[in-house]
């Protein structure tokens, strides 16, 4: 279990991520991403490719090898950066219990 827990003070890093999801990140954002992308199977979202370089479904990876990958109904991505942002929002919700868009509005 990760020691680091997300809270309000991480909203600045959420903003940073949404502006530029892949590449150089501040140390604070990197720590948020480590929390989201590490060994927490509760939010292990993956993309299931339908068309390479074109179309992806959202899946959840099971902990046990060989178990079925659960497809999250009704989610289709056609752009990888959109997928990054959407998964970030979902993980924010999973880990803080709060809607990221609302949290950003309230903080503004």
């Amino acid at each position, binding site marked *: 279990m990760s020691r680091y827990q997300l809270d309000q003070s991480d909203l600045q890093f959420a903003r940073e991520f949404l502006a530029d999801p892949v590449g150089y990140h501040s140390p604070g954002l990197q720590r948020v991403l480590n929390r989201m992308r590490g060994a927490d199977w509760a939010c292990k979202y993956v993309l299931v490719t339908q068309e390479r370089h074109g179309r992806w479904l959202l*899946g959840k990876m099971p902990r046990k090898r060989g178990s079925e990958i659960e497809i999250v109904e009704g989610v289709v991505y056609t752009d990888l950066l959109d997928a990054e942002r959407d998964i970030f929002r979902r993980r924010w919700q999973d880990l803080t219990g709060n809607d990221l868009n609302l949290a950003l509005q309230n903080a503004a």
Partner: protein
Amino acid sequence: MLPIVAYTDKLSVAAGETLSVMASSFGAREYRADLRRIIQGDTNPEGPGYKDERIDLDLGGARKAVEKRFFPGSCVIVPAQRVLSGLSDFTIAAVVRPTLVDERERSIISLPGFARIGIDGEHFVAEAHGHRLEVKQPVNTGAWHVVSLSFSTETGSLTFAVSKDNEAASEDVKPLVQTAKVAGLRCDAKEVVIAASRGSDGRPAQFFDGKIDRPAIFGAEISHDALRRLLADFSQLARMRSLLAAWDFSVKMTTQTICDISPYQLHGRIHNAPARAMTGWLWKGQDLDWKKRPDLYSAIHFHSTDFYDAGWDVDFTVSLPDDLKSGVYAVRLVPDGDEEAAYYCVFALRPPRGKPSRNTVAFLFPTCSYLAYANHRLAMDVPGTEIGMGRVVELDRHHMFLQSNPGIGFSVYETHDDESGVFHSSRLRPIVDLQPKVKSFLGGFGSNVWQFNADTHILGWLDAIDQDYDVITDEDVHEEGMRLLGQYNVVITGTHPEYYTRNMIEALQGFTDRGGRLMYLGGNGFYWVVSFNEDMPGIMECRRSEAGIRPWEPGHGQFYHAFTGEYGGLWRRNGRPPNHLCGVGMTSQGFDICEPYYLAPAAKDPRVSFIFDGVSADAKIGDFGLAGGGAAGLEVDRADQSQGTPDHALVLASSTRHTDIYLMTPEDLLDPTPDWSGTQADIIRADLTFFETAGGGAVFSTGSIAWAGSMAWNSYDNEIARMTSNVLRRFNDPERFSIPEHKDS
């Protein structure tokens, strides 16, 4: 997913020879096959486009797609001749260290149809002709136990005893004993199966996960205490008059043979390549090398997930025409007319054996590295892979297939279900990631291709510049060494030639020493020791000891390979640092984005002016590419004289920063402080390196996996492709290179 999946009996074949294709339906009803020359496998719309070429060769019409299955799980099978027939008084014993218990039934030793000792669920059990005894205490995984089942006609007692070794050696061992009164027993077993039993379908079943040491069978009842003493001393044991069989797994460890030390010589064979040369019951750290004390390495570690040869029936064979030119090809299987769902059995058509082809350039198709990664499940099994990728995990169709079919066997990046490392990877099974078009986990933002499909960027470039070349494989170099390499002026590597046998690394070093020219177009090359086994073609062993970026360690005392006795781990720790061969060595990895190189003053040296012919004088090169958007990245190598980079080597250009996903390799991270990351540490960089060799040869190293992704940018029309072509042109010119008298500053 993948409606049809297949493999060939070889990954390297010469024109005029035949190739067998073994296919299985995973939904397909029928399929048609054709032969394709693979030219460029990356389907990224930003790239040069997928390209293969149909070879006009009739591979037959529609074939029925037959369903075949994977049967993983290792064991030992010993035909019993008639030695055990009619046995009534007996003792069956073994020393075991279980590593996994779950709801399954597992057998430690079985005489099918007569008796077995095993673990059912969480308890040790024994059975003989329908009588079942169970030890109530749950099994301790990780501890050594002596287990024995014995029967005496005189007393009518069937006795099952289990004693666990205490970690605190001063404590007396107290066996747990279960007994039953039985009227009489008579053995009719025709074989002994160790670490499994026979299923109703006749196949091995009830596989055991864990270590087994010195299983034995006696024709008399022997008390458990006496047995513990006897088993600890093979020389005494061999003289026991009641002994019928006792298997010393430390004999012939490098082979598939299992030796009985009793005079009956009931020798057997391993099935599905379990790990041999493993520390046994009596190993307490006395030695770390099994070659010095083989007697201490008397255990085999079995896994229900071990897999060697799928053994599928042959669907058809292909005779490769005499005039077919060397290259990378695939037998393509199109299921039910659906080209999108086609499966590609990729193989190398090597030059003819024993006579030189006219080509002077060879692409070294890195089958060892493909095998190491074969069917790898990194981002599926290891949650932290996503952190190293710096982006979301994409599962391609072959990943979905792997998730549904773990029985296909693992790569050396996985662990078995008991969390011990996977030491072996075999090519005698489908390798679903050894295909064009497939995406991967580690290939960076962009094309996200890895190993074979990333290497097709190099094949595509060779095609684009109209270069004639041969394709030779790691296995060919391992077998033929300099006899094969000596035909060429230039050897070109793939993007990630990470796994090398000693034969291969010595052959390549001998090649450059004797005037050969090496173009190392990759990163993290020549890094790990791997071994082949003369008794088991097609399987490779890898035990990553002590340093390097490793998914697991082989376990204390188990750092020497079973196949050859070689010390596993980094070549750098075995007197063959990659820096000797190619001037650079692994320094860091990150799988998000890549960087340009910046030219160093050495780029102006007249010794390397040929490399920059027609390349603009910009300080920055390779600020583009299909792998993470730059030529330097994914896995990067640095020049380092302290690690063996030749003094006269020129570092022409270097990357000057990477994201903080790029961290220091463990072998150089002696004291972990938080400044060893891509934005902070100068040591984290790719060094574009060149040097001449004493024999008139030369070496050009990119020190970066991403380089080829930049070569393929803009349809191979860019400065990175141009520099690479310049190097190839000069390297293919027999005119000798010479080492400068003094190192230029």
